[in-house]
């Protein structure tokens, strides 16, 4: 087990936040906060400074694609993992070219979340 990551979960669905939280915790990482839409996600990102954001795409008001672009624009180092029920080549290509570190298609399993989080290295770890 590498250093535990601090994770921000963004999903408009309460049940998906529950599932994601349980997987992240089981894998030994810490959920530092959650958000139900993109605007709240951007605000919480700068407030909580998590190592990684698990981001849904289909959300009301400010959706996941806009949130991804906004987060990466404000912090080019932001680590974002997309968690979406959408999974067309176009969606995947858009998110990966806009800086997402991984793309998980719902329904995801714990091994998928593990693979996704394994892509993220804490800045502190890379310095040591």
């Amino acid at each position: 087990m590498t250093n535990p990551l601090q994770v921000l979960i963004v999903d408009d669905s309460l049940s998906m936040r529950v599932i994601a939280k349980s997987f992240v915790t089981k894998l030994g990482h810490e959920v530092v906060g959650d958000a139900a839409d993109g605007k709240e996600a951007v605000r919480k990102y700068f407030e909580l400074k998590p190592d990684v954001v698990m981001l849904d795409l289909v959300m009301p008001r400010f959706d996941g694609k806009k949130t991804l672009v906004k987060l990466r624009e404000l912090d080019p180092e932001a680590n974002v993992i997309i968690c979406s029920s959408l999974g067309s080549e176009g969606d995947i290509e858009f998110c990966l070219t806009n800086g997402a570190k991984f793309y998980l298609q719902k329904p995801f399993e714990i091994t998928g979340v593990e693979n996704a989080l394994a892509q993220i290295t804490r800045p502190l770890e890379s310095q040591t």
Partner: protein
Amino acid sequence: MSNQFFGQYLLEKGLLNTQQLLTSIGLQKEANPPLGELAIREGFIDEIAASKINAEQQRTDMRFGELAVSMGLMTEEQVSLLFHTQKEIKKFFGEIVVEQGYLTESQLQQHLDAHGKLKKLSLDHIDSSIKEHIYCRQITDTLDAIIKNFMRIPKIHVQVAQVEQTKPALLNDSVIISQTTHLPESVKIGWVMQRPLMKQLATNFLGMDVSDQEELYIDATSEFLNIILGNALASQREGEKETRLEPPLLELPEEDIHRDYEQGFYLSMSAGQDNFSVFFMYN
């Protein structure tokens, strides 16, 4: 789950990294140009004609080749020559992954088998009124995704019963959830599901007993519908047509169903001992 894009499957299995996935998607696009692009390349039409056909295509359900012929911009022979060329140069995602050295032939075969384990829903079992429907593809892809996801997530076996020509009576203690997908035109899809089935679905989905937490089991059911539609959209691969999904709307007012029923229909489905209806509306 065979309605998952194979590249996404390989990414999640850790067999491709994101850069390799992006490279493969790019190469696949090059090897599978849309008919319009090929027609320009062959000199059959120019870009202006192609954009005229594309614009017209947004308004109809016709394919590029059919439209080009009906608009007098290409001959049938030219279109069939393009189809032939398209077939000749077409490459499957798996071929590209092997060519790039990301997987060996035997690894590819092994993962194609695992990925395709669940067969696509056969149209033989679908009512003829759906086969002729302009949204047949969307409807059958959705039914396919419903059946697979029920088996995969809540471990409930589901069977499509029949198309209801008249609106079925609402079952006691049922909840309605709807979601809109924006295909060329909007299609709204919803559940009318009995509460006990909803509780069972949510409990299996979340891995914990939530039968006394109404907010959670209703939310889990609507998210489940969201996943189904997302998976169904992913299987359609209609790159040229913009598709998007709107977040689920809980407890759609019953009068909305009555109002829209003229432009929609119900499907009865059964899961174990329970029956439920899926309704499709479009506008």
